[in-house]
């Protein structure tokens, strides 16, 4: 294989400064599995008796334990099936769980790979200097925890507790948030805001007073018309949505997909609108124009529930399909006929709000336009549109009141991003390096369950922050890139080996879901609740962790809502009957959660904050000759970077490829599956080569790659050096002025055919 020679290309100079990036493999031998590449494919070929499986199977005794999946944030409930000798054989869905209906997605089914991955973190690691070089040393938990607690106490004494920030995602977030609040800081940031659904939530809150949450409250199952603006359901494998889209197809619903790429969803759509990237707002405005001026909107609904129609009508008067044609490259009659399809099906029409909406920096305005379309069609609060969720609230386990921090991330805003209701990661990262002669306000990080290195763009900002940090603690399950920067690495066990908080989903019906360990934690790994509790006790915060085992908390909480741990261990998921209607009751006026109680077609809130009260199209730069817009998305069998080393899932898709239209490939003389390097507008070159996929599924002006590949941390034996990393290429970020989201699709790449590092390397 020709790639192997690129794989050995040396990685140099991550940080020339104080905190060197350490490859965890530099550790003492024996702690990490050896051998790389293809040979490792055969790992885990558990020579279980296949014959048994064939001839009755009943002989293989399995015990099942309830869990909910942590491979993405949809949190499907399922069962981990354990063999008598303590191996997790398979994970299947829980049929009582409305979030998955007994079917996990490929990543959830392949979740066993997270547990089996031989590259997992195994013991706590401490950064030490040995022979003048920074390296990691294995440490006992006591040693590592004492070290962290001492450091954090010092930080508190020296700079105040607010100098610590927490970056988190997924289940470990809760315990560490609790710890950090008890410690006295309010600086918590998750990539799910600024890099993901923040813009959408703010846009919908500005319009309807509330967001569509997660799992999204879109009634796809019963819809008659589903409009996807970039949302690539089917590749975006959020389980419930995929299942419901399939039901919608069975029901003959009209699907309209707007995407510069023929996404899987687009291929199942009646209409595919291959829009020029970055011009969606023009299309949305033209649709609004058609709905209003062709008299197609839901007049009754709008009259009863919305305000600002007159302003909107005047606003869109010139935004005709003909106007939009020049911008989007979509034919006017296509724009008109799709608008008519939406209106015909209304109110059972969904203009999908999307989820990852950090695109072009005007993302709140784009999602506002989407929200307005939904309002005009009357879909919010109607069957087949967007329903009202109902959940169940579990009381917090009793604990003392949190101290009040002297300042929080909100004080870092300086009047920027007025509608940010969660901390944008980049804001906290920026505040972690000195600026304008001022000391950095944030001096230490705890990072749990997020691989900031491949998650948050703007790596210069990131590197600057790392240089000035006093302390960086990483809680992770895998030796992801972020662990290479840590002072202390605390290895968490996987979701299959631990208890976690009760899942309390608000959706069509309230449910409770339990995750319990199916097997004991491997090696020295520990659950995050235990880590938080241990640190809390060492920091003198024992009162906040007033239990011995987390099962006490869970049992107490479950008993408050009429269940118990014992019951949940048996059933895994408990459904609770709904008390409110999921739709607007005919004849009863609905009060929206906006200031005026009405849908805001014209946003007073935005106007007051100095922004356009109604969405406007702004033109974004376009690629120069020889460059192509870099767009990215998901592959159904991977989740970001967290599955990039999962043996089961790597076997399905070992690397990403760059999608190139054959016409473009013709100009470059590309052959199928040829490896090339990517270079962006700022001269940034991809670390590894990536395969060219010649495909008609994409426009001429764009290229596409799946996010989550191109790992450069060698201890990730399967992931290392495979494919290209989109985050690396995202050096131009368009920050949404309304909420601080990081628009990441304004980057342009060109190709390099020969190894750009060959000459300089030798």
């Amino acid at each position, binding site marked *: 294989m020709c790639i192997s020679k690129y794989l050995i290309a040396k990685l140099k100079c991550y940080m020339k400064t104080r905190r060197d990036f350490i490859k965890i493999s530099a550790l003492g031998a024996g702690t990490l599995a050896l051998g790389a590449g293809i040979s490792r494919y055969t790992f885990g070929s558990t020579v279980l008796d296949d014959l048994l499986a*064939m001839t*009755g199977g009943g002989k293989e005794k399995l015990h099942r334990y309830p869990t909910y999946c942590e491979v993405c944030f949809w949190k499907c409930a399922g069962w981990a099936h354990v063999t008598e000798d303590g191996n997790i054989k398979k994970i299947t869905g829980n049929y009582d769980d409305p979030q998955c209906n007994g079917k996990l997605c490929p990543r959830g089914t*392949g979740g*066993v790979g997270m547990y089996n991955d031989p590259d997992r973190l195994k013991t706590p690691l401490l950064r030490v200097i040995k022979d003048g070089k920074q390296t990691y040393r294995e440490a006992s938990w006591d040693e590592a925890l004492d070290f962290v607690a001492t450091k954090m106490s010092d930080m508190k004494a020296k700079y105040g507790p607010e100098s610590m920030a927490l970056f988190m995602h997924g289940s470990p977030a809760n315990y560490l948030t609790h710890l950090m609040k008890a410690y006295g800081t309010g600086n918590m940031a998750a990539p799910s805001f600024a890099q993901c659904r923040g813009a959408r939530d703010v846009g919908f809150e500005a319009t309807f007073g509330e967001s569509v949450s997660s799992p999204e409250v879109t009634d796809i199952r019963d819809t008659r018309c589903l409009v996807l603006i970039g949302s690539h359901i089917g590749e975006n494998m959020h389980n419930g949505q995929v299942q419901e889209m*399939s039901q919608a*197809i069975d029901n003959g619903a009209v699907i309209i997909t707007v995407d510069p790429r023929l996404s899987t969803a687009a291929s199942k759509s009646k209409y595919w609108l291959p829009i020029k990237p970055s011009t969606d707002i023009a299309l949305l405005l033209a649709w609004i124009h058609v709905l209003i001026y062709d008299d197609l909107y839901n007049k009754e609904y709008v009259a009863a529930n919305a305000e600002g129609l007159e302003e909107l009508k005047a606003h869109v008067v010139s935004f005709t399909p003909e106007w939009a044609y020049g911008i989007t490259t979509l034919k006017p009659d296509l724009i008109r006929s799709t608008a008519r399809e939406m209106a015909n099906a209304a109110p059972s029409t969904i203009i999908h709000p999307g989820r990852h909406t950090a695109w072009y920096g005007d993302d709140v305005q784009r999602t506002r336009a989407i929200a307005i379309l939904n309002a005009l069609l009357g879909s919010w609060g109607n069957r087949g549109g967007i329903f009202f969720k109902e959940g169940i609230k579990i009381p917090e386990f009793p604990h003392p009141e949190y101290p009040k921090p002297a300042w929080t991330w909100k004080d870092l805003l300086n009047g920027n991003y007025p509608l940010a209701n969660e901390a944008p990661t980049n804001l906290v990262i920026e505040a972690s390096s000195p600026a304008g002669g001022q000391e950095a306000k944030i001096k230490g990080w705890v990072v749990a369950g997020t691989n900031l290195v491949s998650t948050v763009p703007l790596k210069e900002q990131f590197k600057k922050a790392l240089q000035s940090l006093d302390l960086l603690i990483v809680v992770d399950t895998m030796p992801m890139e972020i662990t290479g920067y840590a002072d202390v690495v605390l290895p968490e066990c996987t979701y299959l080996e631990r208890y976690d908080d009760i899942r309390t989903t608000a959706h069509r019906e309230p449910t409770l879901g339990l995750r319990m360990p199916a097997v004991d934690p491997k090696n020295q790994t520990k659950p995050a609740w235990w880590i938080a509790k241990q640190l809390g006790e060492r920091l003198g915060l024992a009162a906040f962790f007033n239990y011995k085992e987390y099962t006490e908390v869970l049992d107490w909480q479950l008993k408050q809502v009429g269940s118990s741990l014992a019951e949940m261990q048996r059933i895994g998921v408990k459904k609770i009957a709904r008390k409110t209607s999921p739709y607007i009751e005919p004849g009863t006026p609905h009060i929206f959660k906006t200031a005026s109680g009405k849908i805001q077609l014209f946003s007073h809130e935005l106007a007051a904050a100095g922004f356009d009260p109604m969405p406007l199209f702004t033109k974004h730069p376009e690629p120069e000759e020889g460059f192509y817009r870099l767009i990215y998305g998901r592959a*159904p069998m991977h989740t970001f970077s967290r599955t990039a080393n999962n043996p*089961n899932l790597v*076997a399905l898709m070992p690397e990403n490829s760059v999608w190139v239209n054959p016409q473009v490939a013709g100009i470059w003389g590309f052959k199928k599956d040829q490896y090339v390097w990517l270079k962006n507008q700022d001269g940034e070159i991809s670390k590894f080569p990536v395969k060219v996929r010649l495909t008609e599924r994409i426009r001429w002006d764009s290229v596409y790659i799946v996010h989550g590949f191109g790992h450069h941390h060698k201890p990730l034996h399967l992931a290392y050096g495979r494919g290209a990393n989109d985050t690396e290429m995202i050096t131009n970020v368009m920050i949404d002025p309304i909420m601080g989201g990081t628009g990441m699709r304004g980057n342009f790449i060109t190709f390099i055919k020969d190894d750009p590092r060959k000459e300089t390397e030798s």
Partner: protein
Amino acid sequence: MRYAMAIDTRKCVGCSDCVVACQTENNVPIGFCRDWVSETVDGTYPNVSIELRSERCNHCDNSPCVRCCPTGASHFEDGGIVLVTHNKCIGCGACIESCPYEARYSHPDGYVDKCTFCIHRVRKGEKPACVSVCPTSCMYFGDLEDPNSEIVNVLKNRKFKALAPEAGTKPQIFYLV
């Protein structure tokens, strides 16, 4: 009884859940597979179409793999399921060469392995692992001789095709188009 599968290409999203589920259910070693997903893209931008298909052994009615097997390891079970008895198989590879669908592979332990239609589950009244996991519910499994079965129903109401019928094997996996 004649077991068969119908797979709706209009709903399949190519997620490969069927592949992983088969792997964990049947202990297929990582790096091998009994089922796989293919994608055919046709046309020129912007008039492009995609067909996604989850493929596996077709449990052919007229199966060359059974015919060519020198030891009788490849054989028919009730319901037309084609199976390989591992400890009768000598690993000669004839069946691999004989299958126009390339549905068989050589297991690292030496014998030839392939889809069993999850006979161990089917006998217990469950659906095959791949069918039961499919998030889009695009796979139908059942008895073609039972006029009330779901599979007969969808085949009656939808247009379908089989793969490489010209190979003459009478495949029993149908693709709804």
